[in-house]
């Protein structure tokens, strides 16, 4: 009984010792960012038409679809001297509270004009909660940090059409 115990103890010691020579599998995160999956749902973007007009028409369907109520849309009428969007109305205020958002992508599905899409950025930490309320300007702007994205060809998923034709 003692012999078999010693043998099993020795074997378990051998198993762990072998691991030293295998190196590590840790990814050193801030230095190395693993490319995200092409359809990874990260920070939202508001998209523009090619002629510079906003796609969003302020219909609030995204806010209605949002399960955690983190989107606030206040619409206003377009006028001849202040034409913001292609439709009749535009979003005067468009805010997303990212501290509440669960990145489910329902807003993206609800939007009839593909105005709101989910990007790939996930580094969203802030020192204050109020900084996590993203305004329309922030959502329209290009993201400051670029998130590496894996080559879509590696995966059996089509690139969403709003990524290719604007």
């Amino acid at each position, binding site marked *: 009984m003692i012999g078999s115990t010693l043998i099993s103890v020795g074997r*378990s*010691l051998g198993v*762990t010792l072998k*691991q030293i020579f*295998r190196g*590590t*599998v840790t990814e050193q995160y801030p230095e190395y960012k693993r490319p995200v999956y092409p359809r990874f749902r990260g920070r939202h973007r508001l998209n523009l038409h090619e002629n510079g007009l906003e796609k969003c028409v302020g219909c609030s369907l995204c806010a209605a679809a949002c399960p955690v109520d983190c989107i606030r849309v206040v619409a206003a009428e377009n006028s001849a001297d202040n034409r913001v969007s292609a439709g009749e109305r535009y979003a005067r205020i468009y805010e997303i509270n990212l501290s509440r958002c669960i990145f489910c992508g329902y807003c993206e599905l609800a939007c009839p004009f593909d105005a709101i899409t989910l990007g790939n950025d996930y580094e969203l930490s802030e020192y204050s909660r109020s900084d996590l309320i993203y305004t329309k300007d922030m959502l329209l702007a290009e993201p400051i940090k670029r998130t590496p994205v894996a080559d879509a060809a590696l995966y059996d998923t089509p690139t969403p059409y709003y990524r290719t034709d604007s």
Partner: protein
Amino acid sequence: MTLPLAQLLVVAPKREVWWIGAIEALVILMALLLTFAFMTLIERKVLGRLQLRYGPNRAGPFGVIQPFADLIKLVRKAPFQPDRLIHPALYLGAPVLSATMAFLAFSVIPWGGGWELFGYQIDGQVVNVPISLVVVFAIGSISTYGVLIGGWVSESKFALLGAMRTGAQLVSYEVALALSVLGVVLMARSLSLTEIVAAQHRTIWYIVPQIVGFGCFAIAGVAEVGRAPFDLPEAEQEIVAGYHVEYSGMRWGLFQIAEYVHMITVSALMVTLFFGGWLFPVLHRFGPIWFLLKLAIVLFCFIWARASLPRLRYDQLMNLGWKVLLPIATLNAVATAFFVVLV
């Protein structure tokens, strides 16, 4: 293997002056503290490697500042303590007692042959007593009081249960530990660690004839310092600490220091008793370096065992201590006695 040993052990023409002993004690204390500090880092790094991770590598190059960052964090922590302490002095004294005794036990471990420098004799250990092996065990037993008192004065049933659990384990394994070194004592015919080292140099490292005693000592030693797989005193994954649940900050840190210094002391004792101490068949001049090298290997084995073996259940622990180790260690001592007398 018979080499002129008299040349290695600088025969003391005069005794060590007291202030040299004091300086030596200070140096050893600092060395132990540094070893403890980096032991925490090295343990985490080696453990990480064994589990395919890096371990701490953010604080400074390769994480070398990590122990100091940990220290600053511990010192700055709020010294929270239980309300309505009946014995505040004992509460504060228990970790101090534990840590002090842990450091004290190392003072008799020989780590070099002694030198003569500027006409002064410098011994290879802080104090040279003829019964140093007994001293180590005696001081180690006093250290158990720190644990028991700390758990008892915390005014918490969990701390008390933890202290009882720890106390029972330490007392049980001390028996096996003391019996397992009896063979070495019989073979060297001395209780002085210096003599035991010299005797091994004359004959052979005692791991060879005392392999059974070494096995018992290794297992009981790991249990005695409360390290995995015998870390029931602080089973952090299941019951999260025992006797020191009510301690925080540096008071808890002192218990931690005591545990690590105990580990270093038991490793040093193992090196001294079974691996020829600071002596090596070649290059005797580097006594302390050989000692450190052997110590490092033994300490690595402590970490290695922690990464490999699952924690024992409490009844398994007691069974192993009383029903397996104690009889084997006793038989080993008896057999060695017969051998020593007959041969």
